């Protein structure tokens, strides 16, 4: 085989491999993103947009003061608000460290037929002054935002 031919063949192989890798990547990405995209809604959005029952999404807002209570054992419930609408959240498990009434919170879970939010996971930030940016936006929209320092 002459050199040019080997070079051409090598280039062809590399391009072929790249092509295969890219197609596989694209296939995997398209295949995956359907279930792994998790939308983020505020309580108002949950009430206005028809969120599909049984679809996992994230609910963000502030924990309403004095709404938190234990039901049985580690089963808890609390209200999440964006200043306009409230949604009742049910959760079973140990709460994250920085969970407090009046603080920002992100819950991941689904709606039940009664319109309550069944949280599978409560996400906490590791910063005591944290507020989910989306919640800040929503609070600003509804004029509930107070600059804290």
């Amino acid at each position, binding site marked *: 085989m002459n050199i040019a031919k080997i070079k051409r063949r090598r280039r062809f192989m*590399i391009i072929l491999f790249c092509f295969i890798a890219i197609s596989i990547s694209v296939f995997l990405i398209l295949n995956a993103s359907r279930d792994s995209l998790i939308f983020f809604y505020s309580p108002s959005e949950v009430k206005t947009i028809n969120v599909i029952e049984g679809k996992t999404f994230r609910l963000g807002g502030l924990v309403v003061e004095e709404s938190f209570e234990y039901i049985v054992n580690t089963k808890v419930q609390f209200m999440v608000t964006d200043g306009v609408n409230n949604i009742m959240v049910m959760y079973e498990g140990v709460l994250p460290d920085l969970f407090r009434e009046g603080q920002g919170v992100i819950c991941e879970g689904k709606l039940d037929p009664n319109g309550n939010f069944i949280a599978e996971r409560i996400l*906490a930030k590791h910063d*005591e002054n944290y507020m989910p940016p989306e919640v800040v936006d929503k609070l600003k929209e509804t004029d509930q935002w107070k600059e804290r320092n």
Partner: protein
Amino acid sequence: MVTEFGHFLLALSLSISLIQFLIPAIGVKINSINMMKTASLSAYLSFIFVLFSFLALLWAYITSDFSVALVAKNSHSLKPLIYKISGLWGNHEGSLLLWILILTFYSAAISYLGKRLPLKLVSLVLSIQGLIAVAFISFILFTSNPFIRVFYPNIEGEGFNPILQDFGLAIHPPFLYLGYVGLSVSFSFSIAALFIGRVDTLWVKWVRPWALIAWIFLTIGIALGSWWAYRELGWGGWWFWDPVENASFMPWLATTALLHSSIVAEKRDTLKAWTILLAIVAFSFSLLGTFIVRSGVLISVHSFAADPSRGLYILLLLFLFTGGALFLFAKKSPDLKSGSLFQPISREGALIINNIIFSSAAATVLVGTLYPLFIDALSNSKVSVGPPYFESVFIPLMVPAILICAFSPMLSWKRAIISNLYERIIAIFILSILITSILVLLHDGSPTAFLGLFLGFWLMLGTIYEIAFKIGIGKKLEIVLNRIVNLPRSTYGMSLAHLGVAVFIIGVTVSSAWREDIEKSISLGDEIFIKNYKLIFSSYDKIQGPNWVADKGTFFIFKNNINIGSLYPERRFFPASQVTTSEPAIMSRVFSDLYVVLGEKITENNSYAIRVYYSPLLNWIWFGIILMVLGGIFSISDRKHRLGYTGFKKVS
């Protein structure tokens, strides 16, 4: 006074860096050796100034000088000394100063170790390092100055985020930054090479050790972060595919690819343009990582000290450096002649496949990480891309890489005759299938567990076989001993690193496939059964720490009814920041981890919410990473990889 001194030195280092950027570059242009020679001096000076500036800030932290705004905001006089020190880089301004310190340290190291390298190359490299320093020092001085004073200082600081007060996290940023910023060296070398227009195997020999050092630190840095997350956050996991984690993982993937492609560039004088491109991409990823972490544009569970306006500046820098570098690359890379030829089935071929896979993997992680930004820009809805995406995209992509990795070190350069290897490959295949089947059947595992275990054993056996073959196991003892001594350290390095990957895969697979967890509320004296362990909740005390008070639970642990120790999970309350954190207690054994988290006290019935995790082989994740790092260290200790090695071309 010390603070003002530090501020002044930082400003001074900006002008020195400007000189370091301009004079050598002009020197190269007009071919003035004297001007080129200034690069070294500027690099040393710049490092010394930044070092003293850093020490000045450190002094403010150690002495709890609350007249410095940054110290007042992030520190507290009652904090243990180590967290006063680590508090320096636990915030935006301080961490940026650390970034710059490490950058100038690398520049100084380049000039110290590069004395025997061509002057023109070193001058250009230092000039580019100087440009990066100018960009970042002006960033810190004009937007995030750590030395600003407050006019009416408080007696006490506001305290430091308690969740960050952990040894693993205290040393995590320096290591991570040594990795991130270390990538600037191979970046600068690449840009310099593009300017000069010549890349030879010697150039690769100089760059490779720097890339290797960056890789080692990056690996340690990521591992420390993940180890911290495991011990501190109380959900028993160690990786969440969070944007901030991905931000460190993308440069790691690119650097891993770079290390592999540079082997080809060094040994076979080909793939040079690709190696340069990877060096550029790796550093761009590290800038992108800094941007993601610092800007807070993405919803992350653990980003700290985020500020969007500052993020914009980093984004600008990212565009300038990456854009400029890629433009230069597009213009100059066609001039780089590629050397030797090879057949698709050869060591080169296998390494190219490795590179393609790692690059695709990095790209898919990038897509997943930035996807929420696109969606937000396009449709104004907030989404997040969760672990399922990464698991279903990243893992299948890595499968072929692991399959190839087991036998590619056995392939010969240029043209491998695969039929010579059939016997070995089949032997390894059968053996690993056998081991995996037995384990999976014995413990009732899932198909995913089967795949993971198979890949782990396949790679492990392949690597062991390969090294055994190289040292000639079965031959005469003296031959074997001779070969053990004479085998290059980089060969051991490779084997150790690959072995580490194998151990890591096994750890990840087993700890997730056979993990068990219990979440319930219990009262004093209650028992919990998990796997073959029994936990007894025996007592509950109040204890006092240096800057916290805690509730401490005591759990007696029994395995098969034998007491094997106790665990003491805590819930700490930090009065300074009014925050409660839980301190999980972990019993780490070679074959399993037992992990207990103490939750809140439920006052109604006087019980406590607790979580218990049993994760088999979780430790192997850390063992695997340690092996990878050791592999890197072995490689770098190889004589021909020493930094600044000028090389006598071996005749082979």
